[in-house]
């Protein structure tokens, strides 16, 4: 790590960095702004920016750099259009849930899944972001807190609120 300063400019290091961070960044931006296609474009532009600035951004700073740049790009795009969170074609039901993670596995009907997805789409941005990072990307509260630069406690509150909101929205099915 002697020339860590310019490691971002190293093609292999850059590729490695892309592969280990692009997906989560894409998901994060999608949860935040609600459009998957747009999120993938933003990820592309963000990494181009990182490459052009590689001599100024060390590898250990690159993660927070891409999150900041991507969030700002998202804000500048979304400011002009009221984006509804789009989940059709993007959020999919796991086909055969063979890995029973929760011990209290219960069969879930298709309609229920649709209802759940629309309830998630209706969540406030921050709650949705935290909820999906936790459930889909399996991120711990600590990891989510680091991504969005807030305390773990704040993430726990958002998670709790998200669940209460989903429960209210879905009602007694």
């Amino acid at each position, binding site marked *: 790590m002697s020339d860590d300063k310019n490691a971002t400019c190293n093609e292999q290091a850059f590729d490695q960095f892309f592969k280990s961070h692009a997906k989560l960044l894409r*998901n994060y931006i999608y949860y935040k702004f609600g459009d*998957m296609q747009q999120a993938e474009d933003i990820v592309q532009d963000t990494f181009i920016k990182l490459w052009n600035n590689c001599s100024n951004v060390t590898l250990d700073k690159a993660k927070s750099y891409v999150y900041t740049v991507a969030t700002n790009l998202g804000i500048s795009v979304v400011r002009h259009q009221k984006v509804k969170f789009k989940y059709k074609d993007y959020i*999919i039901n796991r086909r055969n849930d063979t890995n029973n993670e929760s011990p209290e596995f219960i069969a879930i009907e298709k309609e229920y*899944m649709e209802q*759940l997805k629309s309830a998630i789409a209706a969540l406030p941005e921050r709650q949705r972001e935290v*909820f*999906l990072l936790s459930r889909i990307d399996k991120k711990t509260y600590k990891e989510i807190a680091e991504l969005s630069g807030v305390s773990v406690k704040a993430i726990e509150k958002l998670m*709790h609120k998200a669940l209460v909101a989903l429960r209210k929205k879905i009602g007694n099915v």
Partner: protein
Amino acid sequence: MFDDKKDDIFLSRWINGELTKEELIAFKSHPEYEHYVKIMAGADALYLKEYNEEKALIALKSKRSSTSKKSGAVIKLWPYVAAAASIAIILGLFLFSSNQTFTSSYGEQLAITLPDGSEMILNAKSKASFNKNNWEGSRSITLEGEAYFKVKKGSKFTVITENGEVSVLGTQFNVYAQDAFFEVHCFEGKVSVVNNKYQEILTAGKAFRDLDNTTPESWTIKAQQPSWITNSSTFRSIPLQYVFNELEKQYNIKIQSPSIDLKTIYTGTFPNNNKKVALRTVFGTLGFEYSLSPDGKTVVLEK
């Protein structure tokens, strides 16, 4: 339990398996429990459209090389091209053209010795240029602004301005040419002032002025040299506009005077090296209130 303000992370702790045994037992017997279990089970059955990192990386690289690299290269080349070009131009100016230009800035005076030993002193915010190589053949200077000349005896010496030409044989004189205001003071010897409207010969101690919309006039002066040489500006029956122009030139300020008639005639003097006194002198005698902006660059006048 769930809208409880005291425990607003209860469900988060539940998901993380951080509830105590008692809490969990109490929760499980709660009617809401199964609803939350269902939400969690449903949420855990969700997943996202795949992301093909390899493909995304390839797309990224092709876009990177097609757009950004090119512009990056252009940006990096430009300074060198520009630097090379300006060096070439400067060299060219020195080697092939012998036109020399002198410019004085706000509040600045510039003394220049001309090739024959004549002297030219530029007042603030003025510009003069002459041809060095051809100086023997024709002593002529192009002037914009104000300058004081001490001319050595010799061939005809000409100052060309937009308002007219002043030519002499050997003398000391002052030329002011700005916008529609043209004024020449002759301190020694003889000068002739010519343009398409008039031809005037000034002898020592005479001054001539041509101001737009008035008939050109000449009068007698007592001074031995222009007042600005000793750091003051003197005006004799001049529209206020030109006095303000001179204040702006000497002190690099902007005077905002929305409600003031700039055609008012003014006679007086102000120092060129003391802004406070200058402003007080001019505006005070005219009975104007004035305020200076915090950066000292703008003066706003009120009647």
